[in-house]
């Protein structure tokens, strides 16, 4: 956090949301148009369709230290592209089990169908996810795996890496 703001004592989760353009993104817009107040921890990445969401996106988000991930798209039968959400659903049926088996709690990956008219549901998804992840605490374990390797692990050169986690706030110091 910047020098100008008090360091917050409570953990603020960082949540990345991958949403489809036609339903959930529009639903989130609708929440805005209706001035529904919600937690500000979620950052949206807009995609055409949940069918476009590769498991790699979620892996990368966790790798980078996201505390939670939301995936959201059109309800079944409502897909703008008729079937992208069905393919996504099947993909995530498998992927969430895999994540869980790898030890990444399903509590941190939230899937939802939010239609363009469900601004209120979007707010619920956002608020509930933020609260749930806040209760779980930060998820840095994946990110920190970079310092672990068996061979010569203790000899890992500790390059002093710039801690850019502070960078956005620093850049936003003007606020």
């Amino acid at each position, binding site marked *: 956090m910047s020098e100008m703001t008090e360091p917050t004592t409570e953990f603020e989760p960082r949540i990345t949301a991958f949403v489809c353009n036609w339903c959930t993104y529009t639903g989130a817009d609708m929440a805005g148009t209706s001035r529904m107040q*919600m937690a500000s921890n979620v950052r949206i990445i807009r995609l055409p369709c949940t069918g476009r969401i590769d498991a790699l996106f979620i892996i990368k988000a966790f790798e*980078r230290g996201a505390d939670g991930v939301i995936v959201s798209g059109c309800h079944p039968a409502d897909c703008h*592209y*008729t*079937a*992208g959400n069905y393919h996504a659903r099947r993909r995530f049926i498998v992927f969430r089990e895999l994540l869980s088996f790898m030890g990444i709690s399903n509590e941190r990956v939230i899937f939802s169908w939010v239609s363009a008219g469900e601004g209120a549901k979007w707010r619920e998804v956002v608020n509930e996810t933020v609260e749930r992840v806040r209760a779980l605490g930060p998820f840095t374990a994946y990110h920190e795996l970079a310092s672990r390797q068996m061979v010569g692990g203790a000899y890992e050169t500790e390059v002093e890496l710039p801690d850019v*986690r502070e960078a956005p706030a620093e850049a936003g110091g003007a606020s």
Partner: protein
Amino acid sequence: MARIGVFVCHCGENISRTVDCSGVAKALADHPGVAVSMDYKYMCSDPGQNLVKQAIEEHALTGVVVAACSPHMHEKTFRRAASQAGLNPFVVEMANVREQCSWVHEAGPATDAKAIDIVRTIVEKVKNNAPLETVRIPLTKRALVIGGGIAGIQAALDIADGGAEVVLVEKEPSIGGHMSQLSETFPTLDCSQCILTPRMVEVYQHPRITLYTHSEIEAVDGYIGNFHVTVRKKARSVDERLCTGCGDCQAACPNRKIPSEFDAELGTRPAIYVPFPQAVPNIPVLDRENCTLFKGRAKGREKDLCGKCKEACLRSAIDYEQQDELIDEKVGAIVIATGFKLYTIGREQPEGLSGYPEYNYGEIPDVISGLQFERLASASGPTGGRIVRPSDGTVPKRVVFLQCIGSRDPEKGISYCSKICCMYAAKHTMLYRHKVHDGQATVFYMDIRTAGKGYEEFVRRAIEEDGADYIRGRVSRMYRDGDTVKVVGYDTLAGEPAILDADMVVLCTAIRPHKGNKNLGRKLSVTYDQYGFISSAHPKLRPVETTTAGVFVAGACMSPSDIPDSIASASAAASKVLGMFSGDELEREPTVAIVNERTCIGCFNCEKVCPYGAIEHIDVCNRDNEICGHVARVLPGVCQGCGTCVATCPSKSVELQGFTDEQIFAEINALLTW
């Protein structure tokens, strides 16, 4: 090196009330790759847009990020503005700090931080945006209409009248479809033939319509604007160029006892026949399965057993040796209008449906279908419009109509409502009462559904003016009781059994899709529902489009529909076709997928997930020009840009322009920076 311009909009106070807009602009000024960052009261206003345009020129920007409202709101506005300033519109993106930030959070550092994050994310994305050009694909301004019922006729005429050429393909020997079999039509009770026949003739005579009857679609290749269609013109055994339609051959045919399809098997026809007098074209077809000559040949007789029709024909138009003909047609658009068929009650039920053995249809001759009743009531029908019992030719005094035979009955395999039966049952009671003044019509129904102009009034008339008796309930059993049919039902309103004696029973059978729909669907990469009806691209927003670009759908092949609905959807499909034909090329959004053919391994998992059939196989050749493999290619004219193929491709060999892996990676990178 990227030179991105960032333009933060206050939206009056809509954004600036909760977000420190100038702070955001300042924060972004330091961001790597940002050449200029500014804020302004109303970015979408003329002066605001001019700021963007000026900056593009002054700073030679390679990308523009407008931090303002939702892209659904003003993305087009700013892309147009950038375009006017000479920048490719696809390097302009919106950072949504209004709907998804200022309007949903209170003022404070967390909201400012989020706003900055949103803008940074989009800046990082835009650094990876590629300038894209509109996809242009050639266009053949010629349409294929599959099916010559009322929907196909309407679509063909509308398109042809609009100036484009039409190829109309009909499976039966004549166009006209089910409508030509009807007596009168609801809710006006005007004669079906009288309104249909002129349209059929119009099709036949239209200078821009090529009509193939007794023909089917053999194969379809290509994509929107550029379909190659192979039509199988089945052998008619009659030379159409020579035939005058005089009817001498029909009269000469000795084999006259073949059940007439047109009369719903209540009448008969010869082996060489014109299905009905007003048929278009008025050219007979020889039914080889029932022809004595061909049956003899099939059994291996060396000498033909008959030849009377050929002898009778003064024009020598009869050609027993005629073969099926394959005709290639190139078209730009296709309208599917294959219509429907009726639930084949009592007979063998295909596709896992179960019939109604308890009604003894087929056993009791006076239990008939609704279509058979139409033929009985029709002036051109086998009885000349007299309503009589098939068993003994007497006039039935008590006629019972059963609605929902098959429809709305998951047990029988059909959950949907067939939509037209309520109306035509009411019509039947009226037609019956008009012809048999002392007759009593009784209708067993589940619900009466009369949504449509004049429909409710029509049913009320049947009940109130023409005395039809409506019983809410279902019939569990029917059996022969001497001369009459015992109808055992239950009146659910009265809460008591309703056991009736009837002289004739009419079953209002469900509308079902043609068996051939699935096959046709596969040929056209068009999806169909669980029953086999053709699916729309979107049930609400794109009702007459299909999942394949350039293929449209009309009439009852989509779902049960009556004549006005069929015509409306046909005209809608025709207007879509004409819209498509309004330019010389087709223009498509460039946000489509492209395959890296060098890394594609040709597993075609992309093809399996593509909802639009946009993936084609192309050969890969080695240096000696021998085919050594296959890879996928996306047809840009067909792709709609969902990106499902991209996420499915194991080797990351497909990219979705506008949402590439690099762009999304950059966004994640920006959001979760360490």
